């Protein structure tokens, strides 16, 4: 399973809540991450390709990925085993680190 954020969702993901626009973190989490995570497993992880987007706001990443732990109560250890973040651009490596940071922070707030 693979989600290419730029192709499947938007190349300009924007904002945190649906009030902020159709391509916000909450909508991405509810319409793309959660349904795909139900079918993901260690042997068949959900691959999320982040290249192609024109940058991300931390608010989008926190709502989308941190929200999985904070609001949808998914075990962060399980998330780590069934999600794989893919990026080819080295400049996007910081977003990968941010995604895992938000998942860990959400877990520590639980």
């Amino acid at each position, binding site marked *: 399973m693979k989600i290419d954020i730029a192709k499947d969702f938007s190349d300009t993901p924007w904002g945190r809540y649906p009030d902020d626009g159709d391509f*916000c973190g909450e909508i991405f989490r509810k319409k793309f991450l959660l349904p795909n995570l139900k079918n993901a497993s260690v042997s068949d992880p959900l691959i999320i390709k982040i290249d192609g987007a024109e940058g991300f706001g931390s608010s989008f990443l926190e709502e989308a990925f941190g929200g999985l732990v904070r609001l949808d109560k998914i075990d962060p250890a399980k998330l780590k085993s069934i999600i794989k973040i893919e990026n080819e651009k080295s400049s996007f490596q*910081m977003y990968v*680190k941010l995604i895992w940071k938000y998942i860990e922070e959400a877990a520590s707030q639980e």
Partner: protein
Amino acid sequence: MPDPESLWCGIVDIFIFIRSLVPALLSICLGGFILNKFFIRRANMANCIDSLCKKIEVLSDECASYWSQDYSASKNGELKVQEAKIKGALLQLNVDYRFIAEEYKIPCDTIPAQMIELVDLCTGGQFESKKRKADIGRYLKIVNCLGGITVHLRSHKI
């Protein structure tokens, strides 16, 4: 009319003299080339760092303007441009920093962590959200983080 034998001896003497100078001349040329390359490289590095520091100042100004005011529907268009500028500046800063660090072998043990903290500070919280309130505390943290990055970069200019 000079004696051909003494003329030949003169030519040989000149040749021996020039030959004795060749190693010294080569050393001077090589030394000059290396020194020149070193100083040009240092000057290029200083220019790159200055350019990066200017981009950091611009980012700081954008963040000051953005985080010092609440979200306002009447300024929505202007705010969207500012948000795009901040995200673009952060990406550009990251790319430029990586280039300088790799090209000029600047030790970067702390900078990647600072960059991640910076992106988190500049675009975290209620960034791009209609619920956003002015957050001067966040801006102060951004300034401190940018200051740390600038100091680190400038310390390699000398």
